[in-house]
């Protein structure tokens, strides 16, 4: 019984990380349709920001050290967002409606950012010491312990999903973003400065990737290739869930995450991965537009 509970928990935990990593991509790829290969590097930036924040707190009294992580979350959002803003203004804005070019260009940007990280922080991975209040876990029974770190990430994902939902569907900014993504010319004709909306939408998506990076520091050491490990998975989550829907991203992440852990538990690591891919391919054969695709007669074009 305990093993199964732990399996379910692991599944949810892996899912939460996938969802967190894919959230930003749900905006930049899902809404803006930019194939952004540098998405993983925004995750990396978020992770390094957390590392820097930790280093700053090492100089402060020990009692304050635990607080660094709470500050690192908004800081990683802001720094990744700013880098995203600059990238949109300088590179991506010239590549709208040119998916192949944007794929190549952003891949190049991704390599540049990785090398930059190596130059600044050195090639070896660096460690981020998790704050004391996240050590240990919730003991349910003998041999069944849910680590606080994992629980914290799950909570963080829920908070991020909620705030993104409020931002996109309940705020004036979100209304503008959705209008621009649905019909650029008409949005512009309504008096919306669409270029500015593009820039801050991309910045918000990048910022969420930064938060994912911040959370990943809890699970292991970080290096310049941190983001590359996630890029394929995150695209899979967004595509499987249905491009452009927040619910889809959550569902896609949950499905891939639990399928991953369950199938690996039932078979072995490599066969499990193969089975997950087969599952995804089958699902996409059945629903080519993803699980939660937007269907409307007005989108027939």
């Amino acid at each position, binding site marked *: 019984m305990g093993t199964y509970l732990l399996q379910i928990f692991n599944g949810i935990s892996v899912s939460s990380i996938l969802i967190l990593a894919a959230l930003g991509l749900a905006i930049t790829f899902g809404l803006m349709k930019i194939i952004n290969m540098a998405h993983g590097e925004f995750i990396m930036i978020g992770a390094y920001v957390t590392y820097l924040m930790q280093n700053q707190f090492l100089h402060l009294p020990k009692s304050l050290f635990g607080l660094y992580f709470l500050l690192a979350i908004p800081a990683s959002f802001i720094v990744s967002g700013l880098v995203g803003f600059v990238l949109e203004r300088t590179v991506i804005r010239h590549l709208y409606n040119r998916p192949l070019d944007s794929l190549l260009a952003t891949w190049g940007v991704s390599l540049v950012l990785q090398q930059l990280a190596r130059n600044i922080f050195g090639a070896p991975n660096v460690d981020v010491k998790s704050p004391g209040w996240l050590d240990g876990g919730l003991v349910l029974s003998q041999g069944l312990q849910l680590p606080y770190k994992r629980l914290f990430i799950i909570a963080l994902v829920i908070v991020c999903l909620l705030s993104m939902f409020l931002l996109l569907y309940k705020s004036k900014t979100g209304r503008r973003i959705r209008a621009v993504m649905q019909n650029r010319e008409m949005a512009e004709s309504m*008096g919306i400065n669409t270029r500015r909306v593009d820039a801050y939408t991309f910045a918000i998506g990048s910022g969420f990737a930064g938060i994912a990076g911040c959370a990943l520091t809890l699970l292991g050491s970080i290096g310049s290739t941190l983001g590359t490990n996630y890029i394929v998975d995150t695209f899979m989550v967004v595509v499987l869930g249905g491009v452009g829907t927040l619910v889809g991203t959550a569902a896609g992440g949950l499905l891939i995450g639990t399928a991953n852990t369950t199938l690996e538990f039932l078979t072995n690591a490599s066969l499990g991965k193969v089975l997950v891919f087969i599952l995804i391919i089958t699902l996409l054969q059945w629903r080519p537009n993803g699980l939660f695709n937007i269907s409307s007669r007005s989108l027939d074009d």
Partner: protein
Amino acid sequence: MLDVTKLEANYEESIILNNVNLQVSKGQVVCLLGRNGVGKTTFLKSIMGLVRTPKGSIKFNGREIIAEPTYFRARQGISYVPQGRDIFPQLSVQENLLLGLEALGGKGSIDETVYDLFPVLKTMLQRKGGDLSGGQQQQLAIARALVAKPKLLILDEPTEGIQPSVIQEIGRVIKQLRQAEGLTILIVEQYLDFAVEVSDYYYVMEKGRIEAKGFTREINKEEIQKLLAI
């Protein structure tokens, strides 16, 4: 109010408009007539800045706007209802209407009088724009344009593909806007009877130029009909 002189517009290499002159005075309802494909829609798009206009001048309230971006023109008080209505399909009717406020800087609230003009909208505020029928979308598009409190309202074929009862309603609304609020309106239309009924002045376009113009009350319907017949 709107003064277009010697306007040229093109898509890629082909010139669509050539030396077009058109004036709309304050409080006037002006109708631009013409067959399919003569450049009427392109003309409206060039006023909004949605196509390239290498030559000519577009003055709005005495101010040259030909080089200004589209959103700036909208904020100057030009509201545009395009031919395909261009309702945001995934946004609710209410959200579509709220976007009308963007031309006013995104502030304020929807003037309730638009619901008096189009009562049907009030009953479907939470429905998605894309789920409305063509006639309802047309009414929503006009209402959305009016939320922006425009100085000039531009309508591209408001009667196209719409059932007669809704055409009548739109005609009634246009007359009401002209009389009650003195709104300046520029309409592109192929339906001559509708145009004659609602407008003060007309222009007829042919192959990217203005071929005829005059006061609607002096219009020779048969002659104009010849220009419009295929």
